[in-house]
């Protein structure tokens, strides 16, 4: 049997995602939990798996431990086998290429030996930061049909948001004829999704050409558009860059909407649920006799004795009698004790909210966080990993409690809107 040379996948998972604030304090953005037991990178990895691609390199840089533990050997995405595999590609020092990745193209260039050891006809270049469902096989077919050097996954976004993206001007054949990276005065609403198919040889040539071309969007693509065959592959469907607290919260809420466009189950999204090394498997979620749950996602291992509304609960969350969780996202093993209220809040793993506390109180949703006004300004409060909120405490809107904050760190019974602990 002759094995078909299939496309090689490179997944850029080094993103800091600093606007996600304390959620990326101990992990890279692709490793941020999403929709109960998933992580953001599961969407890209599952799309790769469901597209029938089985050779993947994951480029990491920023706080990769959580990500590496999550990937494991790649069994969860069926990447184990003779000709299959997922390889972690961390930054490394060499004779000349010391130092950290300076940009997306630089990251790939520093792993050019991986590319050379895995010859293929095409390379699919992805980011591990997005929530979407896409068939890369169809995109590859399109790339071959167009005989393109580079094909860029693109979609229409509101004109007001285009400033965050690479923007492409196309002709009637979908050939990209002009490119603007993060334009202040956009001429188009067609945005790059950061998904590229490169002709293998073309990519190698581009990387060898000039070491100062460190970014695909800023350097490699504009030059390719000027000189070679670059096409846009139009994408229609759900796609979110969950790069801000607000967009992250909205995408989670999209999962629990009844008429939602996003469904991990229907999209065939897989995750690695064994990464946390417990001695028992998570048992079924347990609902007590006074539980009231509506419009929510509840993961295995949860114990619900209080009220949960419009919320997304990761595995092992406990909501005690009389407690209320509303419009919130709780990561694994958070405990909300008796008669506490959690409203419009994101709690990282293992947060404990002692009894009779209120997290997210009052209606001053528009008083932004004083230290991070660009991160928190819509009313959402953030509680960091393993923080303990003492009994009887009240926390306002747009607040941040840093990870591992202990009870003793709270000097008063009230944390005002926009404050940080």
């Amino acid at each position, binding site marked *: 049997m002759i094995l078909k040379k299939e496309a090689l996948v490179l997944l850029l998972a080094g993103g800091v995602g600093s606007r996600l604030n304390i959620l990326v304090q101990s992990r890279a953005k692709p490793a941020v939990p999403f*929709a*109960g*037991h*998933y992580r953001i990178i599961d969407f890209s990895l599952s799309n790769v798996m469901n597209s029938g691609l089985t050779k993947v390199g994951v480029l990491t840089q920023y706080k990769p431990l959580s990500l590496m533990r999550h990937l494991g050997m790649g069994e*969860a995405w069926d990447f184990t086998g003779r000709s299959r595999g997922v390889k972690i590609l961390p930054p490394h020092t060499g004779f000349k290429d010391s130092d950290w990745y300076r940009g997306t193209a630089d990251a790939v260039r520093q792993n050019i030996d991986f590319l050379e050891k895995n010859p293929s006809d095409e390379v699919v270049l992805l980011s591990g930061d997005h929530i979407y469902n896409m068939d890369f096989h169809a995109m590859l077919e399109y790339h071959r049909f167009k005989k393109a050097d580079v094909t860029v996954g693109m979609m229409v976004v509101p004109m007001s948001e285009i400033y965050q993206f690479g923007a492409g001007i196309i002709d009637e054949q979908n050939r990209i004829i002009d490119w603007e990276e993060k334009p202040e005065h956009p001429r188009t609403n067609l945005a790059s999704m950061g998904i590229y198919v490169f002709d293998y040889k073309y990519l190698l040539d581009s990387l060898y050409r000039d070491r100062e071309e460190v970014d695909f969007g800023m350097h490699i693509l504009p030059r390719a558009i000027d000189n070679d065959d670059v096409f846009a592959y139009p994408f229609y469907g759900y796609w979110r860059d969950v790069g801000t607290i607000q967009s992250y919260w909205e995408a989670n809420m999209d999962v*629990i909407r*009844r008429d939602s466009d996003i*469904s*991990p*189950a229907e999209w065939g*999204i*897989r*995750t690695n*649920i*064994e990464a946390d090394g417990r*001695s*028992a*498997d*998570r*048992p*079924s*979620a*347990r*609902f*007590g*006799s006074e*539980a*009231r*749950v*509506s*419009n*929510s*996602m*509840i*993961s*295995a*291992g949860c114990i*619900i004795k209080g009220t*949960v509304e419009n919320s*997304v*609960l*990761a*595995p092992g969350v406990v909501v005690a009698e009389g407690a209320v969780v509303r419009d919130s996202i709780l990561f694994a093993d958070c405990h909300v004790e008796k008669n506490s209220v959690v409203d419009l809040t994101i709690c990282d793993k293992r947060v404990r909210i002692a009894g009779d506390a209120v997290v997210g109180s009052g209606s001053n949703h528009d008083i932004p966080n004083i230290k991070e006004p660009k991160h928190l300004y819509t009313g959402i409060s953030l509680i960091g990993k393993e923080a303990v909120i003492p009994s009887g405490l009240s926390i306002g809107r747009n607040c941040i409690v840093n990870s591992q904050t202990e009870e003793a760190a709270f000097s008063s019974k009230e944390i005002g809107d926009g404050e940080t602990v």
Partner: protein
Amino acid sequence: MLKPSTLAMILAGSRVDKLNVLTYYRPKSAIPFGGFARVIDFPLSNLLHSGIEQVAILSQYRSYSLINHIGTGAAWDMIGRNRGVSILPPFKDNSDSKDHADWYRGSADAVYKNLDFVKYHDPEEILILSGDHIYKMDYRDMIAYHHKKDADLTIAFVQVDKARAHRFGVAVIDYEDGETGGRITDYREKPEQPETDWASLTVLVFKPEVLYQALEENQQSASFEFGRDIIPELMAAGKKIYGYKYRGYWGYTGTVSEYWQANMDLLGENPSIDMEAWGLRTNMEHRGIRDAQPALVFDGAEIENSLVYNGCVIEGRVKNSILFPGVEVGPGAVVENSVLFFNNRVGADCRLDKVITDVNCVFGKDVCVGSGTGSEAGQVTVVGWNNHIPDSTVIGEGATVYPNITVEQWSEAKGVGVGEVLK
């Protein structure tokens, strides 16, 4: 010491007629239990937590479901240099001996036919377990007691309601070691008039030579069961047989109503079966349960005193029930006192009361199953797998529906009366 000293053998071959349609396509040990797991996960998790790393599973009846479930044994950490789980199905060999030409004729015969496997492992003690009981036990304590007494055979016993004792092996245990156990002075298998309320859990620790000899001698007889034959024969031979007193929860699921009751023991404020505390593990690959997305609970849903696993979508009312992965409960539907296996779909305005439904059943709209009284008394209604129940069908309390009933059969039957059987 690197070599494991204990060899565990799980008796997982049997079918048990009283469980009826639930064991048509799987042995009793592979019956789903606990909302996401299977009955055999309980002894397997006990072995894991007892540090017993060599395990054989004797399997005969419809073993596919069981083999699929055990997989490599990785779910229970049973892969590694000195760790392993072997499935031992019946086999033919070259000898003309009639003994080997047959299926396993009983639990003792199953072990006898695999004596070469047992001897190859050269164990210091052989632990024989039943694959279909629900309990949490650290076998190391019992094995330590077995060695302390230098016993030929040690058997675990649990106190049961004396009215039920006649269904089990019943022993008289002396007070040699008080609450821990003592010498067995009398043993009867399923006695009509039990002398005590100490029932055998079918957890046996044998001195290997004693077991080998007993199994050889048993081949001359016409019956090949540990409880009925081996233990009484060893008692008669005056061997040193001790009883080890177990005091925790023991779920025996020999009938549909016992199986239903054991499920109800998973519910309540302080459930008798605490899977998290017991460290229960299952094979998350089986039926793809690891891939199920967290449960979605929509507006209009009410869930009370119930277990709901990932993959469920709830729009109706669920009370005192256990829903396995992939169960959907439509708007207006009410599910009470019921156990719904994997991937059942309950349509709008259905009413299920004290029902056990096997995997892949679809209930159309406005179907009524069970008494509909919401009371926990009364008979359990059982629906076999792969049934598509038409809209507005009525299935009475205590009825039994066989697996794979055809569309023609449903339209002919129109419904199933109280206590009736549709097959």
